[in-house]
């Protein structure tokens, strides 16, 4: 065994430690979760595949008539995007809880708010963002009228980010429960409905030719509120979950 290099300990009671660097911790968290997401890309693809399958089934199950589909398209795409996000939420903090990393996160001298924000950001990058990017393709399959594409992408961009953030609260509350999946859905669903309502009405409004500035503004406001409050609430919920 090689001798340990001299481990210099800070001696003296008043020796200050360099204060923690926020940006570095945020980057470390982001990098770790993105690497993990890449290594588990099979699991990550699950919500996306679910999204694709449901949308391709709709013309088969409902009606292949373009007029019928065009009316349904905004609602169906939005509902399925919401369900796909919900499906992937349970795993947000689960593996960290099971292998003890969550405890390490709680006692790191970094604000838990930022660490949760980093985790949610990664969650959105691997679920909400891909969903948003494939949505126009699915719009074609559901014969979405031309005026609806841009609003669909922008409303999903704002909306899925809000969904990930809001969902994190539920995931944090239920992380310590053995079978928290159903409870998670029950907690989160009511909070999701405003996002769904304004998201679909933006796309529908654009198709009908009415101005959609108001709906987009509400979606943006929901996202802004979620960015500020949801990591706080999630951090509190995590502390409670771990405490038990």
């Amino acid at each position, binding site marked *: *065994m*090689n001798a*340990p*290099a*001299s*481990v*210099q*300990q*800070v*001696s*003296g*009671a008043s020796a200050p*430690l*360099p*204060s*923690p*660097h926020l940006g*570095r*911790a945020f*980057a*470390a*968290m982001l*990098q*770790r979760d993105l*690497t*993990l997401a890449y*290594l*588990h890309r099979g699991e990550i693809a699950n919500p996306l595949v679910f999204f694709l399958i449901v949308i391709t089934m709709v013309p088969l199950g409902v009606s292949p008539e373009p007029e019928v589909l065009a009316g349904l398209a905004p609602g169906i795409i939005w509902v399925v995007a919401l369900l796909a996000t919900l499906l992937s939420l349970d795993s947000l903090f689960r*593996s960290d809880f099971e*292998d*003890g*990393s969550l*405890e*390490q*996160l*709680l*006692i*790191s*001298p*970094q604000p838990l708010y930022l*660490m949760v924000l980093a985790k949610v950001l990664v969650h959105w990058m691997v679920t909400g963002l891909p969903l948003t990017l494939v949505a126009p393709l699915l719009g074609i399959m559901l014969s979405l009228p031309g005026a609806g594409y841009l609003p669909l992408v922008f409303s999903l961009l704002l909306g899925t980010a809000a969904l990930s953030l809001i969902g994190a609260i539920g995931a944090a509350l239920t992380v310590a429960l053995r079978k928290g999946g159903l409870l998670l859905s029950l907690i989160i669903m009511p909070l999701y409905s405003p996002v769904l309502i304004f998201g679909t009405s933006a796309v529908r409004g654009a198709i009908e030719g009415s101005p959609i500035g108001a709906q987009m503004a509400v979606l943006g406001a929901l996202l802004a509120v979620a960015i500020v409050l949801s990591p706080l609430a999630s951090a509190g919920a995590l502390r409670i979950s*771990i*405490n038990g």
Partner: protein
Amino acid sequence: MNSPDLELKQLCCERDERVLFRHFDMRLFPGDIVQIGGPNGCGKTTLLRILTTVSQDYRGEIFWRGAPLSRNRLDYLNHLIYLSHLPSVKKALSPRDNLRWFSGMSSGHRQLPLEEALACVGLFGYEDVPCYTLSAGQLRRVALARLYLTPARIWILDEPFTAIDKQGVARLEQLLTEHAAGGGAVILTTHQPLALARVRYINLEDFQPEGWELDAEAEVAG
């Protein structure tokens, strides 16, 4: 320099309507190595979780450098490293990636390059393999490598010797001695006797209430 780093006063913890320990007093000075012992289920891990501020389920007071812990928690966490009984290692990642995350999260500078820390725990050549290919002992060693990287003064270790071979145990004991000699402090739980000179042994069983006290405590609590 005779003030304790960490001071516990009349700590009392109850879990599932059972008193695990009560009237627990302890003072941790720089250079101390404290071994917490006792049978399984007597609350060792619970005590450590309270000391790391993960769990808030206790009565009594904890002081860090003379001030209540609730008031200077951040400063305390800056000086703390906690290895739980779970390795806290992501199995899909390599030891290097795991350590990089830990050192990014904790404050302060690295004492050593990551590779050297891994070499110190005998994982030379395993830096970039995924952790799921490592044995249980090697996984534990990945977690232990953090001790070579941290500038933290207070080390709280829950069963650090689990799955570690004889040589590894000797190395870890040496590391603990060096840490204590440098003015740090260690609190650890383990069931195996330590070959260290200055270990203070605390049996947590001594702080368990007797049968009749248990009833009285339950009445007070109820």
